[in-house]
């Protein structure tokens, strides 16, 4: 990269600025980590020789059924992802490769969801779920998101770029609609699936408001709601324990991110490229 008129001072300042911003950005997390890994008395005192401890994590883990919350969350995101993959693939294929009357209008209607997310329609969706006697179930948390306009949009985009000759070849071999989809389109769209998958998992792992409203019991509560319930106490907040619990519930996604940073970043990038 040619940086013709870049003076060293200018560049040095730039680097400094970027680093300062990075430090500020990391500060909250570092502070939370400090508090979580040290005994309560050191929560707000920064003596560098303070002893490290895992006791806060132990207490937090035993204080609420976090293992159950973790299981619920895993079931939830897996369920959502699996169903979204199937449903969005089918729909995207129809929009991309099939011609029928009203197709473009219908696609526009589908895209409306990108502006009007189910999150905003809390009260009505709550009522719908209750009417079907599905309240307080993991399925109920997933339902509003299973028909994902974003997924349909992404996959349609990708399917449109798959060369027609490949499709024709499969058709000539005598493959029916679904076989063509399964043999030609799905394998070639793998990067998009991975990208969408990571975006979907992060979104639903971290979702809070709708699960808060629709779940009541421990057997359905995901981690985010569990953390919120845990952190509000009548007896006052113990910051060491709350930060420990907070880090614990963020850990799975954080660790996954740190290990697969590249893939995550690539996925989000791919999901946004027009």
């Amino acid at each position, binding site marked *: 990269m040619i940086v013709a008129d870049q003076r060293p001072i200018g560049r040095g300042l730039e680097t400094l600025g970027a680093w300062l911003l990075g430090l500020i950005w990391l500060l909250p997390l570092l502070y939370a980590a400090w508090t979580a890994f040290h005994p309560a008395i050191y*929560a707000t005192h920064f003596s560098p020789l303070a002893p490290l401890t895992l006791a806060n994590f132990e207490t*937090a883990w035993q204080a*609420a059924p976090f293992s159950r919350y973790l299981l619920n969350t895993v079931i939830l995101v897996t369920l959502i992802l699996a169903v979204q993959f199937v449903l969005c693939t089918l729909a995207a294929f129809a929009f991309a490769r099939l011609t029928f009357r009203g197709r473009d209008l219908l696609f526009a209607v589908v895209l409306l969801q990108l502006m009007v997310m189910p999150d905003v329609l809390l009260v009505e969706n709550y009522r719908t779920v*209750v009417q079907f006697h*599905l*309240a*307080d179930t993991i399925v109920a948390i997933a339902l509003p998101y299973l028909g994902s306009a974003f997924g349909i949009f992404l996959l349609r985009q990708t399917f449109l770029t798959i060369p027609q000759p490949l499709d024709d070849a499969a058709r000539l071999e005598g493959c029916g609609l679904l076989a063509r989809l399964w043999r030609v389109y799905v394998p070639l769209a793998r990067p998009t699936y991975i990208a969408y998958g990571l975006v979907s998992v992060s979104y639903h792992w971290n979702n809070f408001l709708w699960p808060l*409203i629709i779940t009541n019991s*421990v057997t359905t509560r995901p981690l985010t709601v569990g953390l919120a319930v845990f952190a509000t106490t*009548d007896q006052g907040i113990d910051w060491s324990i709350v930060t420990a619990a907070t880090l614990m519930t963020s850990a799975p996604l954080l660790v996954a991110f740190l290990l697969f940073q590249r893939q995550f970043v690539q996925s989000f990038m791919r999901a946004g490229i027009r």
Partner: protein
Amino acid sequence: MIRRRTVLAAGVSVMAAPAILRAQDAQKLTFYYPIAVGGPLQTIMDSYCKAFQQESGIAVEPVYAGDYSQTLIKALAAIKAGTGPQFAVLLAAEMHSLQDQDILVSLDEIGLDADGKKWIAGFYPAFMANSHADGKTWSIPFQRSTAIFYYNKAAFQDSDLAAEKFPTTWVELAKVAEKLTKRDASGRVTRWGIKMAGDLGNAQWTFGALANQAEQKLMNQAGTEVYFNQPKTIDAMAFWRGLTTEHHASPEGVSNWGDLTPDFLQGNAAIIQFTTGGLPNFRAKATFPFGVAGLAGKDSPHTVVGGGNLYFFKNAAPAERAAALRFARWISAPERAADWSIKTGYIATSPAAYDTQALKEYIAKYPDANVARTFLPVATGELSVHENQRVYKVLTDNIQACLNGNKTPAKAMSDTQSEADRILKPYKKA
């Protein structure tokens, strides 16, 4: 395609089934329970439920739903969705609102024999204040508290104050708080004299105590009228605000309930107004000598009761209701009430509990634990009206505006009064 979809549907229903199915027989009950505090309360409640199951064969599953307002939201949501608990511990003060939602069933309706009536009569009258309406009993006390002061004895000492003679009047309290407030060389406060909570869900409790200290009732028994716009109520608000503006002993703005505990333990606040339920926690964690004292009053000490009662819900089948009542009687028996009081710091709900050996020994060892009880005679009920949550919000909004210096106490109270009047208008016909 059909195959795939049936597999999908089957898989979905298999995963959802456990969470969908609800035990319908009377042998399994669910009850919602606030206070999502850690270790102690959860394991204690679990052990109680196990013991009850061993004795009676009825399985009770306690569900932790957060603090009082979260539990209320959750319980109502669940009941409206048809998957609700058979009974729950909710704010004692919520009775009128719950009745409006038409979800309660009275204990009389479930069935109270002579023994049962004796049982109800055995509770402290102060704790039954929010339980009666239409000549029936709608709830029984479970975890009740009064508001008390926790104070830092070491702080008293280094401010040359007699820790044994805690102030009992507003004037004395303000003076003491002023003295306890420490500042460093640059004028920055390093320790506040006194802190009281003003956030949503707690502001009305703090204020209820203050109003009672000015000897003003805030509402009528039927929960249809409120008296905010009275000189004494305005006095109470003015006193609260004055702690900041006149005596500089309390910080500007609103203090959070959740912050009071770390504030006290860190030595950041010398006196806090808090619940008796905090006692075991402070005893375990405080690194300095501390004391428990009753609240002060304009002329003499007054306080407010708070905490949760057991309510029983209509949506439960008759067999379930009877089972729930049985659990309620079991858990409020003197020995268990005593045990609960010792482990949590809440006041045991009946005088009989204080006659048990366990509590007698406990109080002999920790006289602090008895302080709150002695103030029951001068305690008033928590603010309890129809559309309770709405009125709480209006009151809290105005208190917060006043604490931020955006409204005078008089304006805050008159605004609260007019808004509350508007909210309560439909209920005045009854």
